[in-house]
């Protein structure tokens, strides 16, 4: 017509969506096949194979597409190298979750096809956020990711706690979404743009960066994203939702939505509101201290290991926020964002691993309290060793992956001049050793209270083994991985 909007949509545009398309295919295939085929071990195996190869394919596709930052879809999405890093972490966490779910979910009489499908949809949402450079895109991606997780949290719908936790998660998260989109509306109102690069460019020209409208926009965005990342004081949904959900789901939702939230935080705060750094950094510092302190201190009081891990995951959000608080500027000479990226990477392996052992115990007729771990080293030594390994890593014992993750965060904080914040991280990590190692002590020094009932879990074991190997291997290779994170972040 007379004034066509000039948009060139080429095949090149769709290239950035190849990893996403693969995961979407997994979601649709598992949904369709799971609905058509009658439940049988063969069908379940096929669903698992589809998922495993889908996520592997997405990871490989993303890695093959590195090194050529390109935006597409009129600046809605970009597959820059930071997006690739986050996509790999999110897809890997979904892959690890498949390993610990494949035998657990059917054993608990839950529909595997729909389960895998929702898992893939949530992963897809996270991947879309990772590669989004527009507020609208970030919003729909976050919604896709969390909506699927609400349903997964309610998957054990015959159990009251599962429904209760999911409902709390759903209501509070909707509330957070409203705040988030209100913040986005203010940001758009003030800057006149939804594209993050445009927002950053316009903010850089502003003289008065403490205008109340700008501060309100930043505040609302931080609150909304803080909810999604489970930062204190916006963490209220976390313990109940994590405890109520089936354990493999808890493993996934303690990692993928958190990484998604951090992807959104990195995009919005760093790439978009980067020029407002001096205004939002103090807020992030306050959040990080509160989050670390509450997460670690309340975790001490928990007898239920699942709930303890829920609080510990809050504490880990705090450590990641410390890395974010050290942010100076986009570009060189700044270790903050690479350290956050690395922490997300490390956290995925060790946290899903710890929840995985928990799911293994439940599959073998045990509960999730600390007493159920008594003497596990005698009755099931490989699982006990794996659990000890993951817990040592979560504590931050060298030379495991978790140690390097914390080390880089602390380094970034010191470099940015927040030595006291680094001291807080170290002190609270020492506190965390108490509740993590208490489980290790129960496993190795407790009296065995009956052997776990046998169950077929070879595939499960392969997954746990892979995670143990990853935690050890990437611990040793932490230097190269961090270099990769740094280099890929610089390409932003």
């Amino acid at each position, binding site marked *: 017509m007379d004034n066509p909007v000039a948009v060139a949509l080429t095949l090149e545009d769709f290239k950035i969506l190849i990893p996403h398309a693969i995961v979407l295919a997994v979601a649709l295939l598992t949904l369709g096949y799971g609905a058509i085929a009658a439940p049988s071990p063969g069908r379940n195996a096929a669903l698992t194979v589809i998922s495993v190869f889908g996520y592997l394919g997405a990871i490989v596709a993303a890695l093959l597409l590195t090194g050529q930052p390109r935006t597409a879809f009129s600046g*809605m999405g970009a597959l820059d190298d930071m997006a690739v890093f986050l996509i790999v972490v999110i897809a890997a966490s979904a892959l690890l979750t498949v390993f610990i779910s494949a035998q657990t979910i059917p054993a608990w009489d839950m529909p595997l096809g729909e389960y895998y499908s929702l898992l893939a949809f949530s992963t897809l949402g996270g991947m879309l956020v990772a590669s989004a450079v*527009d507020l609208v895109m970030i919003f729909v991606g976050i919604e896709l990711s969390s*909506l699927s997780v609400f349903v997964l949290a309610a998957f054990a*719908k015959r159990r009251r706690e599962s429904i209760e936790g999911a409902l709390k998660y759903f209501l509070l998260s909707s509330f957070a979404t409203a705040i988030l989109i209100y913040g986005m509306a203010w940001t758009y109102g*003030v800057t*006149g743009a939804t594209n993050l690069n445009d927002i950053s460019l316009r903010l850089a020209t502003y003289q008065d960066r403490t205008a109340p*409208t700008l501060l309100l926009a930043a505040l609302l965005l931080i609150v909304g994203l803080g909810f999604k990342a489970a930062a204190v004081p916006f963490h209220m949904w976390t313990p109940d939702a994590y405890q109520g959900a089936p354990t493999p789901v808890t493993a996934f939702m303690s990692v993928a939505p958190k990484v998604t939230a951090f992807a959104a935080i990195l995009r919005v705060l760093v790439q978009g509101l980067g020029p407002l750094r001096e205004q939002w950094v103090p807020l992030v510092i306050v959040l990080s201290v509160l989050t670390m302190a509450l997460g670690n201190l309340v975790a001490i009081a928990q007898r239920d290991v699942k709930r303890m891990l829920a609080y510990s995951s809050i504490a880990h959000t705090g450590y990641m926020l410390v890395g974010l608080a050290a942010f100076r500027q986009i570009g060189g000479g700044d270790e903050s964002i690479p350290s956050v990226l690395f922490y997300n990477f490390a956290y995925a392996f060790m946290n899903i691993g710890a929840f995985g052992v928990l799911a293994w115990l439940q599959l073998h007729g045990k509960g999730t309290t600390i007493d159920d771990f008594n003497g596990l080293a005698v009755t099931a030594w490989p699982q006990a060793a794996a659990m000890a390994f993951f817990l040592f890593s979560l504590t931050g014992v060298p030379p495991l992956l978790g140690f390097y993750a914390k080390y880089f965060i602390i380094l970034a904080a010191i470099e940015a001049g927040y030595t006291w914040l680094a001291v807080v991280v170290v002190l609270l990590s020492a506190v965390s050793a108490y509740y993590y190692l208490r489980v290790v002590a129960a496993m190795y020094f407790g009296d065995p209270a009956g052997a776990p009932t046998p169950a077929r879990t070879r595939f499960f074991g392969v997954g746990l083994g892979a995670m143990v190997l990853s935690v050890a291997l990437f611990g040793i290779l932490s230097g190269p991985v961090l270099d990769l994170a740094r280099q890929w972040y610089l390409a932003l």
Partner: protein
Amino acid sequence: MDWATIIFYLLAAVAVLTAAGVVFARNPVHSAFALVISFLNVAGIYVLLGAEFLAAVQVIVYTGAILVLFLFVIMLVRPEDLRELNTAPRVQTALAWLLGLALFAELGLVIATGVLTGARGPYPPEEVAAAGGNTQLIGRILYSEFLLPFEVASLVLLVAVVAAVILGLPDRFLTGERARGLSLSLGHPTGADRVLEAERRGVPAVDAPDLGEPGTIDTGRAPVGAGRGR
């Protein structure tokens, strides 16, 4: 005063009054109907502002879909369960008044002083006029610039549908031994599993009694709509 201003005040007055009616009505059905009228008047204001598309969406989505959903829920819930409405604790009522008035004062202050100014967006009125109206422009932008989020939004809706099926269907249909999908009779008021169970036992499906067998049928609760003449 020109006609547009008079119409605006008329629409605004009715919208505000009916909005108050939503809060103060004791019968939830009255509240819902007051909300319909309020929404329609707001749609009228959108037309006055030259936002025809928003007006149409307001009528279709809010008045049409969401409110009908409200009414369905209200009518399906037994009236006994609604007796507690409008009897919130005194503290809560006081707090609601306080916060409401604070918000009102805030908004009034902002409008009166005009301190909040933003940047010009990418689509100022001239551009909208050049494109032939905001419906045309929104259509073009939605299917070009915002194509990707638009498509992802459709995925969000797909997940919502899957979620409703998973959470709403009886467990047997999701994990049971029976081939699923084709035998569902979702239109039946008492739910599909009751019908199938009844068929198996040769009982007339419509008046099927509670069939027991915990684990297969949820017998703890009468099905929605049971035992009430309508």
